[in-house]
Each structure stands twice: as structure tokens, then as C-alpha cells.
């Protein structure tokens, strides 16, 4: 009984939501990017760049907002790099993506050294404070959802809704979905496919950067090397399992986050190492289960023309 209480508690719900934030943001970025026909294996690296950018921005200006904006900028730039490599120079998309991961991992360590004279971590900076929503926070039980939570939580939910609406209710979304499946059809319909691709990949980079900033200046208060720790790949898995649909991504991210939350919030009589594996094993199982069945953008990864 105690275990069930632990699992279905308000604490677990809040922990799940918090951990779902970076996964959701990055995986919606992945959705937008892949819908434009470009595979993005560089999510991990883009998130890492964002995490570093957020700390650096906060460190130099003392302002959390500047930190976040800087994370968006850095993330957007990694997105632009991926876009230029894939669209302008027709680099293999998987190579470019993995390259960005390696670049981000190495470059952030070098920059840590250059800025803070430290190996693989930064100095501590100001954290983004939580906010409370007046009125709503007074509601019994669920009031906790609106008390002292990070603004990222609400922004993320808003982004899920906006992304879904744009994807399925607007001309921009329809065009993007056509581009992912049949770029030539989109071109023949007068859509500027190249423009859509650049915008999508850069937007993906910005969302990943934003996700990364959550890890470094909300959940934590400093940058640590490789602090994304595979969440980028989990986000990619959420992109796929969610059927390249922002709402699906959100639900999958919640599932993965739930596994992470169990690890932290529930005391089980299982070796810690096994518990730590849980989110990753779950990701693998999910991908094995749906791998062949979900139908993604048909032309993703293929921009040979």
C-alpha cells in the first residue's frame, strides 16, 4: 500500500511533470525538424549547448532572462549549423547530427576551461526562481501545481498546445506535413521548401537550447560536462513514439519522465543501478515495440534533389 501511495502521490506527479519538461521541449523540436524532412540526431548536442549557453549568459549578465535568451541563441545557432550542413551542403544528416553532439560535448568543456578555469564544470549561477499563480494556488490539492513551480512548466504546456494547433489546424502545419512526406509535391504546390526547412531546423535548435537551459539553470545552478546525459536521445525516442505529433511527444515524454521520477521518489528494494537504468530501458523497450509500426514523415532524411 505504501508503495502505491508513493507512486500515485502529488509529489510523483510534480516530479514527473518537472522531468518531462526538457524531454517535451526537445522532442517537439524533433517533431518540427523531422516533419520538414530532416533527421536530427544532434538533439543531445543542441541541448548541451543550450545548457551551457544559459549558464554563461546568466554568469555574464547576472540575469536569468538573459541566460535563457542566450540559450535560445546558442541552440538556434547549432540548429542553423545543422540546417546549413544538411540543406546547403547535403551532408549526411546522421553524420551532421552526431558531429554536433561531439562538437557540443568537446566545445563546452573547452569553454568551461576558458571562462572559469575549471575542468568540466562552471561556477554556480543564479537559478530561475519558481512562480506562483495568484488565486489558482489556493485550490486544495491541485493548487500545488500552481505554487512555486518553474515558469518552464507553463511555457512547456503552452508550447505543446501551440505546436499541435499549428501542425494540424493551420496552412503552415499542413505545408510542413506535406514537405515531410513528399517535398516535391509541396514544391509543385508553390511552397518554398528550403525556407520551411531552415526555419524548422533552427526552431528545433532553439527548443533544444531552451530544454537544455532548464537542466542547467532551473533544475541546477551550474553547468556540468555532458549534463544532458542521454535525455536528447530519449527526446528523439519520444518524437518517434509520439508519432511525430506534438501531443504524442508530450505523452511519451511524460511516460519517460515517470520512469525517472520513480527512480528518485520511490524507495524500492532494488539495487540503485537497476533503477537508474529504468528510463533508458523503458526507452529501448518502447522503440523496440513501436519501431516498425509508427509511420513517420516518408521523405525524412532524403533531400537529394
Amino acid at each position, binding site marked *: 500500500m505504501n508503495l502505491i501511495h508513493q507512486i500515485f502521490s502529488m509529489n510523483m506527479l510534480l516530479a514527473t511533470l518537472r522531468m518531462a519538461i526538457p524531454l517535451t521541449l526537445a522532442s517537439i523540436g524533433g517533431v518540427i525538424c523531422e516533419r520538414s524532412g530532416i533527421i536530427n540526431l544532434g538533439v543531445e548536442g543542441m541541448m548541451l549547448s543550450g545548457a551551457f549557453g544559459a549558464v554563461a549568459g546568466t554568469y555574464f549578465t547576472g540575469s536569468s532572462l538573459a541566460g535563457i535568451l542566450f540559450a535560445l541563441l546558442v541552440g538556434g545557432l547549432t540548429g542553423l549549423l545543422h540546417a546549413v550542413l544538411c540543406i546547403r551542403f547535403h551532408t549526411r544528416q546522421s553524420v551532421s547530427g552526431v558531429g554536433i553532439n561531439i562538437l557540443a560535448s568537446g566545445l563546452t568543456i573547452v569553454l568551461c576551461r576558458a571562462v572559469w578555469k575549471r575542468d568540466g564544470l562552471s561556477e554556480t549561477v543564479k537559478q530561475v526562481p519558481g512562480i506562483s499563480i495568484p488565486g489558482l494556488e489556493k485550490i486544495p490539492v491541485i493548487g500545488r501545481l500552481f505554487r512555486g513551480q518553474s515558469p518552464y512548466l507553463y511555457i512547456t504546456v503552452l508550447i505543446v498546445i501551440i505546436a499541435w494547433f499549428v501542425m494540424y489546424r*493551420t496552412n503552415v502545419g*499542413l505545408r510542413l506535413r*506535406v514537405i515531410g*512526406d*513528399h517535398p516535391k509535391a*509541396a514544391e*509543385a*504546390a508553390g*511552397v518554398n521548401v528550403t525556407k520551411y526547412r531552415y526555419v524548422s531546423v533552427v526552431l528545433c535548435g532553439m527548443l533544444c537550447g531552451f530544454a537544455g537551459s532548464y537542466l542547467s539553470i532551473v533544475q541546477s545552478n551550474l553547468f556540468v560536462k555532458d549534463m544532458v546525459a542521454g535525455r536528447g536521445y530519449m527526446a528523439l525516442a519520444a518524437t518517434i513514439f509520439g508519432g511525430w505529433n506534438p501531443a504524442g511527444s508530450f505523452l511519451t515524454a511524460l511516460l519517460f519522465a515517470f520512469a525517472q521520477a520513480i527512480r528518485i521518489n520511490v524507495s524500492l528494494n532494488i539495487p540503485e543501478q537497476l533503477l537508474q537504468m529504468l528510463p533508458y530501458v523503458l526507452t529501448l523497450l518502447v522503440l523496440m515495440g513501436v519501431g516498425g509500426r509508427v509511420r513517420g514523415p516518408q521523405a525524412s532524411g532524403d533531400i537529394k534533389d
Partner: protein
Amino acid sequence: MYAVEMKDIIKRFGSFTANNGITLLVKKGEIHCLLGENGAGKSTLMNILFGLYRQDSGEIRINGKSVENHSPLAASRMGLGMVHQHFMLVDALSVWENVVVGLEPGGFRIDRKESIRKVQELSDRYHFELNAEEQVGNLSVGMKQRVEILKTVYRGAEIIIMDEPTAVLSPPEVEQFLMILRDMRADGKTIIFITHKLKETLAVADRITVLRAGKSVSTIEAGNASARELAGMMVGHEVDLEIERPFNEAGGAVLSVEGLRLLPNAASTVSFDIREGEIFGIAGVEGNGQKQLEEMIMGLIKCREGRISVLGKDVTKLGTRKRRQLGIGYIPSDRLNRALLSSFSLEDNYLLGKQFSDNYVRHGIVRHKAVKEAAGTLMREYDVRAAGMDQAAGSLSGGNQQKLVVGREASDEPKLIIACQPVRGLDIGAIHYIHEILLKLRKEGKAILLISAELTDIQQLSDRIAVLYKGEILAARKNEDFTEEEIGLLIAGHREAV
């Protein structure tokens, strides 16, 4: 007044001149057929008209207005629409979404109701019998084509270019398609119909322009034309459209197929025998289990239900190599992926499939001399025209590529030949040649399975014909016992025609 005037169009790709001074005049409100073999320059000319390519010289006028700085966007603004040979449709989306994309009613937020209403209205006007909310992936090929036509009409096209529209249709679908063309003409649309099929041309065209080797041979009134004359203009010399299939005594069974399930949801399984000296033709539109039959016989995909035996030996569980060693020659339907390595030399391509033979490979080392000799003999015997043995297979014309494949597969005394779509994309001369070779192999006593989407192939060559529809053989009879109409109806799935 002419809807389209293209004068002295020249277009070069490197050293190759695709259009060498072509003139095309299309009257308003007519169905104008652009007839020519593969490589005659039809598609290049139409791509220029639609603004996808820029001509090196020559003048284009649309509705009397001279066209400068052409682009697909400009073309569609001038009332031009193009239905491409390969559909530009997204299966995962609905009919209306496919139609309105790029020109959506309602601005940023799509007005869904209005979109559906408009698309449905257009479909009803031309009797397309489409449901605007249906997902495109669920439609048959013929219906998908109507969606493509709808796309052009929705964009206000008055002049519609159709690139080989009937290539993918079953005979009754072709009939319906020609009806649609007539309906559209009655509605005042101008139609340019690209094809290499004489029958359809004569059935529907008002005027015909014949292209050959990048030049316009002539433009004639359809009423004054005969199939023979048109074929002669396409090829450049008199052609024999008929081919004789003399009686041949069939021997014992070579290939036996029993209870094979081609498609998971097929209503029944497939069984047949093919005997020595016999051509067994599988008629039907592609996608009805042809690919599965081909690949199951060759052991390229597993067959989950049924048995295949070659010369009395059960091969169902054998791998492709073991099967080939029993004496199977294989002409795959996918020439450039399964039959040839396009960037490899002709010599290397000759070796493909013979790499286990002691004649050409000893102790793992290729005997280049032997391969070269054999390949040379083949090229002379089968009239493969190439600059030399080192030329890349991909640089040959389709006809010469196919001659190489057929020659290779017919060498080393096979007992059984699996010929899949053997004349796809070939010109009249090459088709005739491949037909003759297949009949020669038949005379030599080889058993031949002929899978072809071209009904003329099947009718001209087969001793017996089976019609494949949704993974099921609807009828199998002697060639003489079928009328052309019956086969056509069966191909479209009209079981009651039997």
C-alpha cells in the same frame, strides 16, 4: 487561337540534345496527344512548358502571351497545370488536404469546412466520385490520379498537361479516364496528353504531334491517322507491330506452384504449373501480388503458405543461390536495383549471379579473361550496343541494359526463366527484340513465367494466361480462350466476367 505555342524549342543537357527544334501548337479546347518513344523528348518539352526547365532557345506563348522568366509558379498563374507521372500525393493526408495545400482557404488557420466544400464540389462537377475527407492512402491508383487532376483544376488550370497518365491504370480504368478527359474538354479545358500508347491516342485525341529523337516529326488530325502510320512516325521506319507465336509442343512441368499466399489478405491462394516450351503469362495491374510472386519464386522473400517446386524438387525452403543453381534465369522487374549495378562495368554486370560458377571464378579469384570473353559473346549475340566492356551499365539505354540482362539470364542453359516486366520503359524496337528472344527461348524448350503489366505483351507471347487481382488468380486459361475485353474486366477485378 492557340492555347500553347512552342516554337523551335532547343534544350541541351551537356552534349545531349533532348529537344532539337521542336514546335508544338495546341488549340484551345482540344485534346492534343504528344506521342513518342521513351527518350523522344516529350517529358523535357513539357517540363519546359511548365517552367521546370529553361529552354536554351525557342519561344513559348501561352494564350497568345509571350512567356519570359518562366517558373512553375508563373505557369500555374497562366492557367497551366501538370499531372505528373509519379503522383505528388501524401498518402497520410486526406483528399482535401492534398488538394488545397499551398492555396488553403482561410489564411493561417485553415477553413476546414470551406476547403472540404470546395474540393467536394469540384469532384462532383467532373463525376470523380471522390470523398473529400477520405485518406488518400486508401484510394486505388485510378482514384489517386483523379485527386491529382483535382489539384490542377482547383488551382484554376485551363490547360492541363498529363504525363503518361494511363501507364498505371487497368483497362477499364483507362476507359473511365478517357471519359474524364472528354468531360473536361466539354468543359472547355485544353489537354496535352503525353503517351506512347497508340490505341489511347487514337481513341481520344483531336490532334496528335509525334516526336522522335528530340524533333517534332509532324502534327496530324487524329481522324486521318492509323496505328501503323503513327508507329512508323515514332520509330522512323516501317514497323511490324505483329509478332508470330508458332505452335510449340509443351513438355513436362518445370515450375509448380501450389497454394501460395501472395498477399496476407488474399481471398484464395495461387496454384499453377509451367511446362517446358511454354510461356505462362500473368496479367494484371502491378501491386496485385506480382512482386510477391516474383520474389517468392526466387527465394527473395519468405513464403509463409504454399509450396514451390522446380523440376519436381521442393525449393520452398531453399535460398536464392540454390534455386538458381537448379537452372533458373531471372529477369527482375526492378532492373536498376536487382538486375544491374548501374555504376559497375558491363563485364562486372555479366558476372552478377554467376559469381559462384567455376567457369568464371576459381578459388575465389575472378577469371577476368573468361568473363570478358563470355560477356563479349553475349553482347554480339544479343546486340547490346555499348562503347566498350568498361562502360558503366547505367550509361546504356534501357533497351541495351535489358538485352544484357536477358542475354545473361538466358546463358548457361536455364530450364526456367522468370521474366518480370521485361519491356518496361523500352522503345518499340527493343520491345520487339525482347519479345523475339522470349519466343526463341520458348522454342528451345525453356519454361517461361512472364509477369507483365502490359496486356499486349501477355497476349502476344503467352500460351496460357492467368489474371492476378488482389493476390488471387481470377482466371487461368489458354490464350485463345480469352477475349481482350474479358481480360480487361478481370484485371479490374470484375470476377463475373469469367
